[in-house]
């Protein structure tokens, strides 16, 4: 099987969907001509293949980029637009939250908005808090949006293709750290359904629910815990909205113990939602209180030791697992 970084997998998904459906186009800052000549990046080479009519470099204008998607989607096109870094979601948020998410409802179901907003995210680049700020919880709090956050290249390809074919607005958040980790990706055209979590590792002693950039740490921790005789089940959420409660709840039913791990800051992060759902619907399964392993409630600092302190890692998870098992 081919081995691809997540950027390449996304590239393949974009390419296949653009070949398949002439209504698909991409737009954003540097999606055509880029300051990166790097084939690991998601939109590399698409301009050459599809031309400037379908690969639209835009000015630095996030509201216009998102509005472009809203208007074009209403007309039946399938825009896939890019917001360069997650903190700039703010600048596009009126168009996404008040329009992409709500206009269908406001039309009484007459119009639909089949658009995808791809957002690069994730700390770990020393770029600081105006480039690194995980805001998936914002999107997840807005009915009308779907929210996808893949953690493997194969999932990214299949999920993005599903997102593009979905008739609803989808926020598709990519952790940049995963662009450079090569992983197996099926060659063929396949769809990974939105709304289905994936058990990336079976376990009987406790469950960790995670997504996006944290999967690697979770898998690493699971490996090490296994050596101590603790078997951790790793649930990769993949899509936050729609939320696959069933998979989470059955896992917790089995293990009786739950940790949620995400890179975003703790308070009012999406981990809280998982906690609430499990509390409401799986309380009786719980043998111990849930724990959250998350970024602390601070902006992401630039300096390497500080940034490392910020990003939750294998050790944090192992420690939480040991505590919860006791």
């Amino acid at each position, binding site marked *: 099987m081919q081995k691809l970084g997540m950027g390449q997998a996304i590239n393949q998904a974009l390419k296949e969907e653009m070949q398949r459906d002439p209504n698909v*186009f991409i737009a954003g800052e540097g999606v055509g001509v880029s300051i990166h000549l790097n084939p690991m990046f998601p939109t590399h080479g698409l301009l050459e293949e599809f031309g400037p*009519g379908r690969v*639209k470099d*835009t*000015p630095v*204008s*996030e*509201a*216009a980029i*998102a*509005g*472009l*998607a*809203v*208007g*074009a*989607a*209403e*007309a*039946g*096109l399938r*825009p896939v637009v890019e917001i360069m870094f997650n903190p700039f979601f703010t600048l596009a948020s*009126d*168009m996404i939250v*008040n*329009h992409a998410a709500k*206009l*269908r*409802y*406001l*039309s*009484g*179901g*007459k*119009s*639909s908005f*089949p658009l995808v907003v791809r957002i690069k995210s994730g700390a770990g680049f020393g770029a600081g808090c105006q480039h690194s700020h995980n805001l998936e919880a914002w999107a997840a709090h807005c*009915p*009308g949006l*779907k929210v996808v956050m893949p953690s493997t290249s194969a999932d990214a390809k299949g999920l993005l293709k599903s997102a593009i074919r*979905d*008739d*609803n607005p989808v926020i598709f958040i990519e952790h940049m750290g995963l662009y450079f980790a090569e992983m197996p990706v099926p060659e063929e055209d396949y769809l990974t359904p939105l709304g289905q979590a994936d058990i990336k590792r079976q376990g009987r002693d406790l469950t960790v629910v995670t997504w996006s950039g944290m999967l690697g740490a979770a898998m690493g921790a699971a490996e090490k815990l296994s050596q101590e005789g603790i078997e951790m089940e790793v649930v990769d959420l993949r899509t936050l909205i729609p939320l696959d409660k069933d998979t989470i709840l059955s896992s917790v039913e089995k293990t009786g113990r739950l940790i949620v791990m995400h890179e975003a800051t703790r308070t009012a992060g999406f981990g809280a939602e998982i906690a609430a759902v499990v509390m409401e619907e799986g309380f009786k399964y719980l043998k111990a209180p849930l724990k959250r392993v998350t970024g602390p409630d601070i902006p992401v600092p630039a300096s390497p030791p500080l940034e490392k302190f910020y990003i939750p890692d294998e050790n944090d998870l192992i420690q939480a697992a040991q505590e919860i098992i006791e």
Partner: protein
Amino acid sequence: MDVPEEKKIKMLETMILSRKFSDTLVELCKIQGKIPGMMILSTGQEAVGSGVCAALDLEDVIITNHRSHNHLLAKGADPNELMAEIYCKKTGCNKGKSGTLHLAVPEVNAPCTTTVVGATLPIAVGRAFAQQYRNEKTVTVCFFGDGAADEGSFHEALNLAALWQLPVIFLCENNMYAGAQRYEEHTKVADMAERAKAYNMPGVIVDGNDALAVYQATREARQLALDGQGPTLLECKTYRCRGHGETDPQHYQPKDEIKAWQNKCPIPRLADTLIESDIITSSRLEEMQSLAENIVQEAVRFAEESPYPEPHEALEDVYV
């Protein structure tokens, strides 16, 4: 450019209808509990929506804002369904989800109405992009107020539309007020049309109380757009004769200013022109008025007799 007679008549008809519609709402919304939400009307501004929409084909698209009733009626929206939606009834064009403020009528290519000031512009850019992408021979008209022209979205949208030469007309309905703020209190630029220069786009000023002038300017901008020459910023100067909404006491609008503009009312102005040039007779005018009266009465009856949506219907239409 000469305005075809049937267009002139059309404009007068939709203006009279819009006015009758608004005047009726003025009364209705005084009745406690009858009509929910804010009531935002365009009394005195009808030459804009009616002039613009007469210049468009059905396939042309409009994206409109909180002050939309005249635009939508002129574009051909069904008065019954509009009124029922304003009443928040199940039979409304948006099943009561929208109410008066976000009326969406995709059937007449008025698919998105937004009350977020300035938000019509980026959406219109997207809609016009689709027209260009598919090589359609149609344009998008984007309505917005003078206040909206101070939002960042205005700037991003005009820059992008000019850059890509999109077939869009940015229609600034300058009614001299943004909420309680007079034009001079929210910007230093003398004319909003001047802002076109910032994007190397044509900027045109037109008397917004002259439906014929609005029609002609729209036709010209539309032709430019269809010829691949990109967007135009078209500023229609008019006046908000009533308050921002119906609960606004207009304490900040000088009485004599209101009076002066009421005297410039676009409806008698067009009616007189048509009568003087023998396009219609004054009895035809009366017919138009009673026809409009009937349409609005019927719309009110339809709305009144329609049921409210069932509570659980609130859960529908979020996702496809």
